[in-house]
């Protein structure tokens, strides 16, 4: 078979794609009307499980953009065992993430020692005003529902107690 010149072949590729798109539809999705499901582990937004947070500030300090704002105070909690001393615990007053600053590096999620921060594939949270991208702990807590189940551990892995 004689070799087809590259120039003609190039024209064939674009025309072929045109007819394929006309016949089978486009590879793209008409976004507001149709949506693509993001992959389960997609980095859409960072969600917070408030109960696990001890206001240890590790995430805020490791954040390269300083976009996490944490305020807390110490308070007394009832003793673990009857007759014991009341415990002193950190109570979380404020946990805000400014998504206008966040660069989605995920260091805060990695660094959290108490499993309080999670990646969620949720991505539809744009705002008309940039200041409205500062989300508080209630909003971050709502996103916990969209966090997928953690994947199964590898066979033979030591389970954390």
């Amino acid at each position, binding site marked *: 078979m004689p070799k087809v010149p590259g120039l003609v072949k190039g024209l064939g590729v674009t025309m072929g*794609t045109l007819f394929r798109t006309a016949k089978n539809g*486009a590879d*793209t999705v008409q976004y507001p009307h149709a949506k693509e499901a993001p992959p389960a582990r997609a980095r859409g937004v960072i969600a917070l499980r408030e109960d696990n947070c001890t206001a240890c500030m590790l995430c805020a300090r490791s954040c390269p953009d300083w976009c996490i704002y944490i305020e807390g105070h110490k308070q007394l909690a009832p003793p673990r065992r009857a007759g014991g001393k009341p415990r002193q615990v950190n109570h979380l007053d404020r946990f805000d993430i400014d998504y206008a600053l966040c660069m989605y590096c995920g260091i805060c999620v990695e660094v959290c020692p108490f499993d309080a921060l999670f990646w969620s594939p949720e991505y539809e949270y744009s705002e008309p005003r940039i200041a409205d991208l500062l989300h508080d702990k209630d909003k971050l807590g709502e996103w916990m529902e969209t966090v997928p189940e953690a994947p199964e551990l590898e066979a033979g892995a030591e389970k954390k107690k």
Partner: protein
Amino acid sequence: MMSIALEIPYWGQSLLRVLGGVGAVLLPAGTIVYLFLFKMMSFMQSRLGPMEAGPYGSMQLLAEVGKWLQKEDIIPENADAKIYKLAPVIVLVSTFLLVVVVPFGPDALFTDFSAGVFYALAIGSVSVIGILVAGWSSANKYSLLGGLRAAGQLIAYELPMVLAVVGVVIQAGSMNLQQIVVAQNSGSIFGWDGVGFPFVLTQFVGFLIFMIAVQAELTQVPFDMPIAESELVSGYMTEYSGFRFLIFFIGEFATAGVFAFIASVLFLGGWGIPFSWFGWESLEAVDGWMNIVGPVIMLTKMLVLTGIIMWVRFSYPRFREDQLQRFAWKVLIPLSLANIAVTAILKVAI
């Protein structure tokens, strides 16, 4: 048809001509942008293009024009304001002047210019001045580089274009575009006059050279060095915004349409259908209804030709500046000179 035309007063005829000219420039431009730039390009990239404004995004163009009109008209501080403002108008006006010689039917023409080919090729290069002036007056090094590249390129490709047309002129024996149309539609191939005698058959080399030169004249992609967005931002259009940019944009695609009109007149038989079909002997014998059908035929041919121009545009990567110049001077110009020589010899010999 002539009798009807005579009943219209002079101001009415002038008005008709102006409206016709605006229509003949803007209608192709809009069609090309929607059909090819929005839809064909999108489909070639496996996407749908604009779908929201109107059915299948057909009103997108109005939205775009509205957007450009309400944008701020920015003039750089160091720019030569008067010339800077004038430049896009020069480019668009050259397009309007170009459409004037294109015949759309036996009587549907703006002016019956006996040296029409000469005029069209001369006016076609006026836009170079607009582009060069735009680049120079913007007070921006990218604009200046783009303007200079455009000037170099347009002058280089002007030559093969002119030389390619000479073959057609020799064969038709006339520089009048209307006569060229008549020559193609009243001719015959070895005595068979079923399809007339479009010059693309004998002047195929000339047609190829002409279309390549048109591609370069329009600075469409394989030849888009003057507006190479990865190195010159947007070339001579860098500083333009709002409706001045819109004028450049319309000018680009309107010129594509008008050059396609001229190419279809020169090589594809223009508005005509073979005269033997209806037994017409000469131009005067052509029935009046061709004034309605002719423009439709022209529009169809224009769409086919601009479709090819856009197809090439969306398929190929850009030439380097030196490759671009070498291609014009070392390939196209010798080839078109050889074409003229061969055509002239055959014209005399046969």
